[in-house]
């Protein structure tokens, strides 16, 4: 049975804000988690999960009235390395960038090693070096050197 074509935009366009497109399918809720959404001051947020695209399925998040900062975008890159960030001003895309994968992240992910010193009550934040590994990302703990490459979204702080 042939599927009927699906219209590209399922949610109405936004006036000002950010559209995060090409999020790895299944990671939209983790993206919201990174952006601390919902909170009382967040504007209207629309989420599309498992949207078909030319490269298979993807998630999309649209946030009205908010432009993301560099640190937020860095964090998103860990769970959605193919994401694009579209800044919308007055219904127009005023900037489109791919997420940039940082070399190091700190205070973003919790080390998976229960015996790691960063998981005790020491006055330090977790710190990882980031290694892009083909389509995946590997994080290496700067303390115990244990790596995380699967389900990074499950270890967000």
């Amino acid at each position, binding site marked *: 049975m042939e599927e009927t074509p699906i219209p590209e935009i399922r949610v109405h366009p936004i006036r000002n804000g950010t559209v995060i497109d090409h999020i790895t399918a299944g990671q939209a809720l983790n993206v919201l988690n990174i952006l601390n959404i919902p909170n009382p001051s967040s504007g209207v947020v629309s989420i599309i999960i498992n949207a078909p695209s030319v490269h298979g399925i993807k998630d999309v998040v649209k946030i009205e009235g908010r432009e993301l900062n560099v640190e937020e975008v860095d964090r998103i890159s860990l769970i959605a390395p193919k994401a694009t960030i579209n800044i919308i001003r007055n219904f127009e895309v005023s900037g489109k960038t791919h997420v940039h994968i940082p070399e190091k992240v700190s205070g973003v992910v919790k080390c998976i090693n229960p015996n790691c010193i960063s998981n005790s009550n*020491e006055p*330090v934040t977790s710190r990882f070096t980031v290694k892009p590994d083909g389509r995946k990302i590997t994080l290496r703990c700067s303390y115990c050197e244990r790596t995380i490459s699967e389900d990074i979204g499950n270890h967000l702080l």
Partner: protein
Amino acid sequence: MTFKDLHIISMKSFSRDMIDHILDTAEKLEPIASSKSKSDLLKGKVLAVMFFEPSTRTRMSFETAMMRLGGDVLSLGSVDASSIAKGETLADTIRVVEGYSNAIVLRHNKEGAAQLASEFSSVPIINAGDGAGHHPTQTFLDLYTIRRESHLDGLKIALAGDLKYGRTVHSLCYALSLYGAEITLVSPKELRMPAEIIDDLKSHNIKVRETDSIEEAISDVDVLYATRIQKERFPDPAEYRKVANSLQITPELLEKAKPELKVMHPLPRTNEIDPRVDGTGHACYFRQSFYGVPVRMALLALVMGALE
């Protein structure tokens, strides 16, 4: 090349030139280590020795090294009796102890503890083992032993025993890869070297082969490095006995080896090496243990800036 104030956390931060310099320095200090001459090189300096878990040999080896160079040792007493038991963080303890000392030797049960300590200390931290993590001074003394008793260049070495959990053999492999060694890994299938380490070695163009037969491995190597197999790794005691016996080094087995083969072991041993091997020219594990002293003397003198 200056080592002054360098933290010694992991072998990965040492290049071959740096390692060679440390081994050369240890060789110069060896007469002092064996009490043939005296030294005041570290007179007036204090080494703080902080062992949050027991390791008597490593602790004594550091203390001997410091005393042989005329320095003083400040020991953290029993952990139970100290403020650590009251919940003080390692970061706080380090910030206090750095004020009392010129270097700190740290052994801790948590992985990454030495790295953390180095971030809070203005005096050099020497990692004496952090959980299942690094133990770089053990690797330096292993390399020193190989150089003194055999040769590092063009070395053919067999590593036998628990290659899965023993992070010190992992660091040793990494260091040997800087010297182009040929490595044979001998272990039961339960305790094989992790695949990522083998991949790492191969990417350094190191010849690596794996076998579970020590007889097969022993005939053409210069060094046989045995490691302890822990009973706890085997749920079935019968299985443990089978593995332990199949990897035991005996005089009969050594008849198949080159006459110049050296047997190493980071003591204490259980039954990996038959005591009848002790009297043969192959045994060098007790000297290996002694070599920890000149190696640690070299590291202390270098990081405290007493030697270049």
